[in-house]
């Protein structure tokens, strides 16, 4: 699955995107995946420190942390929007 990081997620993790193989995505929630990512190193744990500002989109559709990842081909992590 393609994993995208925007704004300070990208700064902290040190990359804009990566490819991660998921097993049992039909049982895996976004929250499970975040816990998995947070354990990958210092940058990741810093990025996922405060879950209240971790926003997630599956295939460009915003979802909450309890959503099952399922067959999504792209997951994106980003802070609250500040455009306009």
């Amino acid at each position, binding site marked *: 699955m393609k994993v995208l990081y*925007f704004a300070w997620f990208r700064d902290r993790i040190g990359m804009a995107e990566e490819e991660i193989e998921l097993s049992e995505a039909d049982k895996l929630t976004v929250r499970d995946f975040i816990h998995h990512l947070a354990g990958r190193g210092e940058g990741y744990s810093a990025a996922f420190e405060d879950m209240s500002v971790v926003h997630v989109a599956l295939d*460009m559709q915003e979802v909450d942390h309890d959503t099952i990842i399922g067959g999504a081909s792209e997951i994106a992590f980003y802070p609250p*929007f*500040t*455009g*306009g």
Partner: protein
Amino acid sequence: MIRVQTEDFDPGAELDKLVAGRTDIGASVSFVGHMRSRNEDRDIETMTLEHYPGMAEKALSAIEAEAHKRWPLQASSIIHRVGPLKPGDRIVLVITASAHRQAAFEAAEFLMDWLKTKAPFWKKESGPEGDSWVSSRSTDEDAAQRWTAPAKPD
């Protein structure tokens, strides 16, 4: 019509294009957001706007469609710039056109309130004190919330 672009836009030309040949439009409202050189007591030299390509366009189209559902709009435009901007630069344009002014005024406010909180754009400010990502404002969230109740029918 929605557009995400790095280049500047010409609000007058965009308005002319939107209403060209139309005789059913009695009112149009244009809103332009500009970049300020100060924010929360910090001097800002450059503001960089980042977006999620694909999702940003989808979100803007959905917000525009929602405005057309709630108000009798004849036409509308949303243009959002991305990339590095300098103080005074234009950031965003919203135009709404309707038979009467009230729908155009309200829909323009709605579009701005929703695009600030529901479309994937992020601002980074750079100045003498360094770089920092802009945090979301609760006042923007409140402004978006007041539109959650559907608009009253005419």
